[in-house]
């Protein structure tokens, strides 16, 4: 019974000092984050099912479970199957306080489902389909069947510079740095914490 296991193991995070060293948050911010986290997960660990549930609350009209799965893998740095506070806060630090390169690396790792260093069309299709799933059925304009595939094509046209059907990190980084919209959009969540 996985729930029982979670409760039995009360996970304590690393000390405040270590987390301060590993992340770019201030002490107060870490304290606030941990209070929120502990309130929601008294056991200190989040398993994938709970994570999917939580993330789905933000997208009531669609199905956020597949994208939440990819997110979970991206945050779960040590692949332990559960998210602890460290994973959570280290990931957030990269996303909110990291350099552009770190953020793009994080996004690249998110898209690279099998973590082999390059993004293939199949992986991208999975990701994009999961994003579209979050929108749900009733959209305007209505979701076409090949919308995700088209989106993938668009993405590869932009990103795949040498046309080999795969996107490496260098290509990804270069294309994103040249695209003003993407650069701007990476900064919009600056004030989140």
């Amino acid at each position: 019974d996985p729930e029982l296991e979670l409760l039995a193991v009360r996970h304590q995070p690393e000390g405040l000092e270590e987390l301060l060293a590993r992340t770019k948050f201030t002490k107060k911010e870490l304290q606030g984050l941990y209070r929120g986290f502990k309130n929601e997960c008294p056991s200190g660990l989040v398993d994938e099912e709970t994570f999917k549930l939580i993330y789905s609350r933000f997208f009531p009209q669609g199905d956020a479970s597949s994208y939440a799965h990819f997110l979970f893998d991206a945050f779960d740095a040590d692949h332990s199957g559960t998210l602890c506070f460290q994973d959570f806060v280290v990931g957030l630090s990269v996303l909110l306080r990291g350099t552009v390169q770190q953020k793009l690396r994080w996004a690249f790792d998110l898209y690279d489902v099998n973590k082999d260093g390059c993004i293939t069309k199949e992986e991208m299709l999975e990701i994009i389909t999961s994003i579209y799933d979050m929108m749900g059925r009733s959209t305007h304009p209505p979701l076409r069947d090949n919308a995700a595939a088209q989106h993938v094509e668009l993405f590869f046209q932009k990103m795949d510079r040498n046309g080999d059907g795969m996107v490496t990190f260098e290509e990804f980084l270069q294309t994103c740095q040249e695209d003003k919209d993407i650069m701007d959009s990476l900064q919009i969540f600056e004030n989140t914490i």
Partner: protein
Amino acid sequence: MAAGVAAWLPFARAAAIGWMPVANCPMPLAPTEKNKRQDELIILNVSGRRFQTWRTTLERYPDTLLGSTEKEFFFNEDTKEYFFDRDPEVFRCILNFYRTGKLHYPRYECISAYDEELAFYGILPEIIGDCCYEEYKDRKRENAERLMDDNDSENNQEGSMPSLSFRQTMWRAFENPHTSTLALVFYYVTGFFIAVSVITNVVETVPCGTVPGNKELPCGERYAVAFFCLDTACVMIFTVEYLLRLFAAPSRYRFIRSVMSIIDVVAIMPYYIGLVMTNNEDVSGAFVTLRVFRVFRIFKFSRHSQGLRILGYTLKSCASELGFLLFSLTMAIIIFATVMFYAEKGSSASKFTSIPASFWYTIVTMTTLGYGDMVPKTIAGKIFGSICSLSGVLVIALPVPVIVSNFSRIYHQNQRADKRRAQKKARLARIRVAKTGSSNAYLHSKRNGLLNEALELTGSTEDEPHMTKGTSLIESQHHHLLHCLEKTTGLSYLVDDPLLSVRTSTIKNHEFIDEQLFEQNCMESSMQNYPSSRSPSLSSHHGLTTSCCSRRNKKTTHLPNSSVPATRLRSMQELSTIHIQCSEQPSLTTSRSSLNMKSDDGLRPNCKAAQITTAIISIPTPPALTPEGESRPPPSSPSHSTNIPTTTTTTTSNIVKVSAL
């Protein structure tokens, strides 16, 4: 759930960076916190007992007193704390609600005191957790019944009735004999005659004395005339009584179908049928049978006895258990009768002539009566006979306590199950209504958010405070998140209802006059992609909004009182989901809600109202709506916010309701 959303929202927003490289369109701007405060401890002094909590804990539920700026009214400058002159015990539960997201009802607390505290703090009782909800509802119902009973008995004692019609007074007299002396007299007279009738029926058959030269006669035949007179008198009384009840009954059709009236009819029918029929030999046998029905008069006593009625009801409700007992008994009887028949087949002059004949033996043996008129003679018969009687003890003795306990259990359970089912349906309906409301919330806020940006960009200052005060930061951030998703995919959200789908995606808020022109503008601007059409839509929206905002400012403050009927009128035209909310609205009787209706801060609720009227305007009867457009805004916010009387964000109140699940 609001706690959940608030705590994880930063995470979800940060994770949205994962969409950025994939997006085809530029992202909308994030909402900015005007005054970002570090989380601070605030002190709540409730009648001397100090509670401390984080500010963000309270802000989880922005539609309650503590979560909104309403608490500023209670801020004490000298001591720098919020002072509430209320019960500290109940406050403990209320504060725990903010902390844990679950509202509990303490059993030792008086239900009306608790209700008052909840109303004061702006918390809807519906979100009491499942662990305590049943208890809460039970106590509330008990209390309500008690108060109602008290009122009733007061009324009765006062004796000053509002003028009821003659018919109604008669019906009341019949149903409650204690209301007037005449009713009491009538009650006792009918009781007496029922007793007389039953006794005469019984005594009729007693043999009393011999007529010389003949055998003993029953009294009925000896004093035939006397008995006939008695019978006639009783039936007269019963007939008159039945006719009077029929006349006085509020619903005659229902009265005729009721059990008591059927008993009445069955009680007096034999007499009339006997009168009608002649002394025909053929039918006299049937006539005699009919006289049996006179015994049903004894059931008329159930009007006089509460216990009899309860017994009847419990039998009815335990019918299935009784039926099962009968069925199992029948099975046992058939089995043993068959066995006894075949066992006794051999013996001569056996009484067990057939299996049905053996039924009698089996029943008498199993119920341990043992008349002795039929006894087995063969050894096998005796063995099986003893088995039969032993098993009879078990078969009879076991179900009886089960049935008795079933009576009480099923009786109470039926009451509780129906009650719970009714509560649950109502609760789920309310929660469902709030949930569908939350999916509309994004659209409304989307328009509102767009409008905010438009206003900011064009530097319109007069309306800015009204707009931005509307949504809370968390809500605007959540909607920004959804907006980013729309941008990433190039699609946009629609409300579920197809009727709303096209129009709400294009309609802006708080536009009451000149709808058609406005709709056209919106249609054009939304058909294109948002970013590219920003400039034209800005100007068109800007022009319309400033005009309508100013118009709204002027008009609405004049009509706080007329707003209520307008809401009710409008509520007829609304869709089903919103209709439920509005139809519940007239039941609001707390003073808080009336305060909100006439709030001087009418501009804020108007903005909220504006959000809601978005969906409502789209219903096809625009010409009818426009004249009363001005008077519509104020009350819709209470109606939309599922009865929480608040002036602040109704949409987050919807999120709150979802969290209760």
